[in-house]
């Protein structure tokens, strides 16, 4: 384990940003979000970001190809160049690290999504051990330990120091690159802080949420539960929950018809929106109940069915905090399934 005094962190950011892009949580006075570090920025590590770290690998909007026509009206396709520059995302909490693994399963399974893969290959995840979990956190429900966040390098902020522990070869290499700034530290230096975090977790209001009753094999039962109607009645059909979710990965492919040809891009989409499944001849989910149910069934039933029981919710609590009408996954889990 290595450490650096918090007072010297700026030197570390400078060293990293010299030949890589560095993304850190920045407070812009209205919300905290990941942004590229620039000289003078002070990252905030004690607040949850509004948007998750998925933006770094699966941005809200990315161009895929461009189409133009030559003089004979023949179509010319130009591919978009993939990411080639290494980048570091620093301050990802355990829940988001797990979320990246969930996304990996989708995008890195055959056929591989090369846009996503290029970003993953060029990324270094510097995770952050939680010290102040929020009341909306329920990652322990999904077996995540917020004190041990993993990633390529795990970061612990304790007292006046930031401690780093490499978890992968990539992480090792990264730490070696900035070793001039780091001092040696004992692995045990962060044990007390870890224990304190785990202690807090047991006191959180949502610590008793369990996934009992959910998972693979309950498709028919859960799908037909009458509670969906009441739960979905307050949903206003916006996409907030899906867009702040670190594991939601649905996207749309659209063409933009500009004056210099056509750009085909993909952008996030939300199953909560009315036109998600709209086809020229009809829509197979016409009510908000169906769309609402789709989102939660996907996270809590379909996903475990396809991925050896793994839920596609990591308990980060973003949707709990941000839903305009406070109708969130915790309510759904509790209403139809588990509470100890």
């Amino acid at each position, binding site marked *: 384990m290595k450490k650096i005094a918090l007072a010297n962190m700026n030197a570390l950011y400078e060293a990293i940003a010299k030949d890589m892009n560095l993304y850190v949580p920045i407070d812009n006075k209205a919300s905290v979000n990941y942004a590229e570090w620039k000289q003078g920025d002070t990252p905030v590590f004690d607040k949850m970001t509004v948007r998750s770290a998925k933006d770094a690998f699966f941005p809200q909007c990315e161009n895929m190809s461009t189409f133009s026509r030559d003089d004979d009206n023949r179509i010319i396709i130009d591919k978009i160049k993939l990411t080639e520059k290494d980048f570091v995302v620093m301050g990802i909490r355990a829940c988001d690290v797990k979320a990246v693994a969930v996304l990996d399963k989708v995008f890195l399974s055959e056929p591989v999504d090369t846009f996503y893969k290029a970003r993953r290959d060029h990324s270094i995840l510097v995770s952050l051990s939680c010290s*102040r979990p929020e009341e909306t956190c329920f990652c322990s429900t999904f077996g995540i330990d917020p004190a041990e966040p993993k990633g390529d390098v795990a970061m612990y902020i304790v007292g006046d120091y930031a401690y780093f522990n490499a978890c992968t070869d990539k992480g090792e290499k990264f730490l070696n690159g900035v070793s001039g700034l780091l001092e040696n530290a004992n692995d045990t230096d962060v044990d007390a802080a870890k224990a304190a975090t785990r202690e807090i977790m047991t006191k959180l209001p949502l610590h008793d949420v369990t996934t009992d009753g959910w998972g693979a094999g309950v498709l028919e039962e859960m799908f037909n539960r009458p509670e969906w109607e009441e739960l979905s009645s307050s949903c*206003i059909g916006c996409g907030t929950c899906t867009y702040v979710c670190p594991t939601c990965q649905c996207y749309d492919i*659209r063409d933009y018809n500009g004056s210099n040809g056509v750009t085909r891009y993909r952008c996030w989409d939300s199953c909560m*929106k009315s036109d998600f499944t709209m086809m020229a001849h009809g829509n197979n989910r016409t009510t908000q109940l169906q769309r609402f149910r789709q989102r939660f069934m996907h996270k809590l039933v379909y996903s475990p069915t396809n991925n050896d029981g793994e839920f596609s919710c990591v308990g980060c609590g973003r949707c709990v905090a941000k839903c305009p009408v*406070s109708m969130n996954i915790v309510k759904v889990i509790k209403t139809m399934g588990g509470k100890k």
Partner: protein
Amino acid sequence: MQGLEKKIKDRAIELLESGKVDGIIGWEKGQFIYDPTPAVFTKETGLDNFCYNNFCGANLSKYLVGKITSDKKYAVLLKPCDTYSMNQLITEHRVNRDNIYIIGVGCEGHLDVEKIKRNGISGITGVSVDGENVNVGTIYGESTIAKSDVLLGKCEVCRGNAHKISDELIGEELQTPEASDRFEMVNKLEAMTAEERFAFWKGELSRCIRCNACRNACPACTCRVCVFDNGRSGIDSKANASEFEEQMFHIIRAFHVSARCTDCGECSRVCPENIPLHLLNRKYVKDINEFYGEYQAGEEADQRNPLVNFGDKDIDPTVISDKEGN
């Protein structure tokens, strides 16, 4: 507030039991003190989970739009400011007044949990209002903040405790917070140079994630299919694919509700990125007041709004194009 909650609950049970209404649209307890969910209470569900506390800022009038074809009668709980939206919906025939029973509930200003959190408070377990102060209990200890610092944006410019439409009132005697000038920020922006204003809006709107919460929560946005969802409109879009699409979305969103916007502040309240969207709507309100005379949408039902009206001496758009200064 607790006494009021009990009063409303008792009355709601009475209304349901007597069969006067089939459902009550109110707020249901959430996971925490600060996240009540709008919900429909019926005889079957009972009112055990009903709540009315300092975090019931949501404007419930929009939920009646979906009930227009229903033959059931619903009672709806409306705070003074929400009644403006109700009047506007009645004016536009977006709700069926005959099937609505409006209970005006008293209000002493609602709190914004985002603002509490912005004060560096996390792990909130309880919030109580004590006169001018708000006591916040968290897993990390207690804190006290001034109530005026954590009021919802819309409550800072409260229009008073008068319900503009109601069938009965409960707790109307509560004192609403004192209001500051609602055009203060608009004036401030207008006094800036064009470059400063552009930078301001670019900074704010670049955070937009196009979740459409502002649109979907807005009681004036009641189109069956929004132009931004309509594949045939040519401008449907799901993401801000460029720097401009989010501006276009927000200009049009605000424009489409201009003169119908009651300035209820829901757009800003629901924004996950805390973009001050109401400043767009409020600019239209201010312009309409200045150009065509004072007008408050939803002041009463069946008003004719200034954009479906005209005068032959109206000012010309060239006044804007040729305006002196920045």
